[in-house]
């Protein structure tokens, strides 16, 4: 009964000052919608960034790690207390690349998280056209799998990706590389390996990914052609690229796969710390900015509730004189701010969604983007609402506490 009465008083306070109530609601609305918008936008930017990065980068990557530190091999054999004299030391044999890729692929491909595996033979080469010679990487790839993992085919600007399957002598060149070598479609290019082997390829496609490492230095050929170029047998690869369902679990999957494979299994965030750091920093900025906005909204509510308490101080005194206790008074004022919080939260979620939709239509033609990226994650909406409620609750509690401590005698006697 007394609770109903308290609610009635709260409602009377709210409705008797519509303007102030509106301002308080608006400040919460603004805070929450900015939180939603900022987070949606930042997640969108992060996802775009990641998607771009994953156009050449696999989630997991198996390769033959460089041999360990071999500068002091003798010490390992003879111990530190023996003096050994050795001149002109050389490593005479170590294995490059992965010899028996089929076995490794067979060992890992039934892992449930894996969505795609593709072998690669990456060779450092010189691309030559007449007198122009450029350093670059020739990537021998499985035409279908490569495009399945990285969507490479959609970055082709001229020629055709799939025609590589029919032509062992066809090469797809990065746009910048082709330009520097003055090559166009159907021209010939000479590829020279570190061992001095050279071979002619025909340019059957030009690719443009906006990633410098690909556009300015990479050429794709069929994997068999690459093996042939460096005189390696069937089954030889330098890298096995693996995509998994959720790239955020790459490190976890990497540790699960590691025991099955005698080579190095590396997750994308291990080899590209800067991507992860960039994502994390952007997320921190988004959260910091939106929490600051919510905090400011909280101060707004605090201010308004404080004014209300001061304005209603005589009513509070008389309520206490009539027998309403501290808890009732806190309830009366807390309910007001929670109502403001809930209404502001609901309107804020709607408004935040509308702003996000609006912004997602703003044209932004960079790389693969047409408009600004935006993500609609229900979790952001729920969190925004919860944070909004917490803010209004705290902002309302302090003035309510103050109201509950009003001494009726002091107020009534004046």
């Amino acid at each position, binding site marked *: *009964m*007394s609770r*109903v*009465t308290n609610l*009635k*008083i709260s409602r*009377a*306070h709210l*409705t*008797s000052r519509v303007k102030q109530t509106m301002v308080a609601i608006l400040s919460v609305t603004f805070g929450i919608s900015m939180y939603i918008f900022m987070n949606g936008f930042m997640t969108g930017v992060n996802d775009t960034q990641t998607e771009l990065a994953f156009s050449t980068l696999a989630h997991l990557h198996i390769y033959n790690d460089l041999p360990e530190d071999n500068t002091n091999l003798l010490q390992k054999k003879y111990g530190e207390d023996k003096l050994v004299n050795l001149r002109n030391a050389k490593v005479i044999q170590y294995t490059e690349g992965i010899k028996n890729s089929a076995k490794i692929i067979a060992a890992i491909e039934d892992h449930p998280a894996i969505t795609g595996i593709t072998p690669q033979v990456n060779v450092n080469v010189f691309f030559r056209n007449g007198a122009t010679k450029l350093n670059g990487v020739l990537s021998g790839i499985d035409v279908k799998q490569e495009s399945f993992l990285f969507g490479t085919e959609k970055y082709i600007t001229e020629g055709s990706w799939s025609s590589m399957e029919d032509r062992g002598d066809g090469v797809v060149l990065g746009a910048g590389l082709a330009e520097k070598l003055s090559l166009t479609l159907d021209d010939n290019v000479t590829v020279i390996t570190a061992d001095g082997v050279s071979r002619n390829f025909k340019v059957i496609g030009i690719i443009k990914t906006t990633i410098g490492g690909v556009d300015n230095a990479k050429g794709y050929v069929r994997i068999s052609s690459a093996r042939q170029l460096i005189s390696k047998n069937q089954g030889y690869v330098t890298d096995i690229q693996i995509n998994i369902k959720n790239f955020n679990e790459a490190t976890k999957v990497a540790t699960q796969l590691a025991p099955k494979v005698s080579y190095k299994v590396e997750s994308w965030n291990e080899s590209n710390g800067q991507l992860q750091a960039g994502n994390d920093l952007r997320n921190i900025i988004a959260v910091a900015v939106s929490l600051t906005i919510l905090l400011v909204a909280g101060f707004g509510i605090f201010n308004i509730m404080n004014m209300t308490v001061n304005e209603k101080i*005589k*009513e509070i*005194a*008389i*309520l*206490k*004189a*009539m*027998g*309403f*206790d*501290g*808890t*009732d008074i806190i309830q009366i004022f807390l309910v007001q701010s929670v109502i403001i919080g809930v209404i502001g939260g609901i309107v804020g979620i709607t408004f935040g969604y509308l702003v996000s939709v609006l912004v997602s239509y703003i044209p932004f033609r960079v790389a693969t983007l047409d408009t600004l990226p935006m993500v609609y994650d229900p979790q952001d909406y729920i969190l925004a609402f919860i944070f909004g409620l917490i803010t209004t609750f705290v902002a309302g509690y302090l003035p309510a506490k103050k109201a509950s401590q009003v*001494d*009726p*005698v002091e107020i*009534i*006697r004046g």
Partner: protein
Amino acid sequence: MNEEIALSARAICKYFHEPETFQVLKDISFDVKKGEFLSMIGKSGSGKSTLLYLLSTMDTDYTGEITINGECLTGRTQNQLAAFRNAHIGFVFQFHYLLPEFTALDNVMLPALKLGRKSEEEIREDAYSNLKLLGLEAQAMKQSNKLSGGQQQRVAIARALINQPAVIMGDEPTGNLDSKNTDIVFDIFRQLAAERGQTIIAVTHDDEFAQKSDRILEMADGRILN
């Protein structure tokens, strides 16, 4: 009037500490009988209002002992006292202190809703009959800030009566009223004391008002004179 004691004060002392320590009430003891209409008079600063607020349980900073309706109230917590006031004490102040957003009827209902002993319907009926007693039935559904000063004061009295308190306390209850309204209020108090056996304690500056009451407690310099 019967001989039952409604309120008793024993050895009440109170000090003000601001701006300097000063004894406002000096060893005050008295009893008020059930159904008695008591007026407290005295010059400003004599301590009569201070005493009233101690009796009202709102001010707990004193020494001595206060008993109302046989219950000793000294040393209870604020929330216990609030509950006690709600059930047993009614207040009328010089200013009405009605909630301006509420109708006269809603204002009167407030303390009873807080008490929660009756259903809302019963409370509404009680409140309406209280307003009727004070000649305000036509004003029941009006918003309280739309009423005249005299009407507001009478609504405040109706509110003080709603829980049928044992003691009704007034701090200059007629201070803001013209003589006609003062007479109405006085008659109501008189009637309540006589017919319902409710004890009335009123601080007043109005000698005529005091003369008509059952007993006068005159205060000077923190002591009772008579």
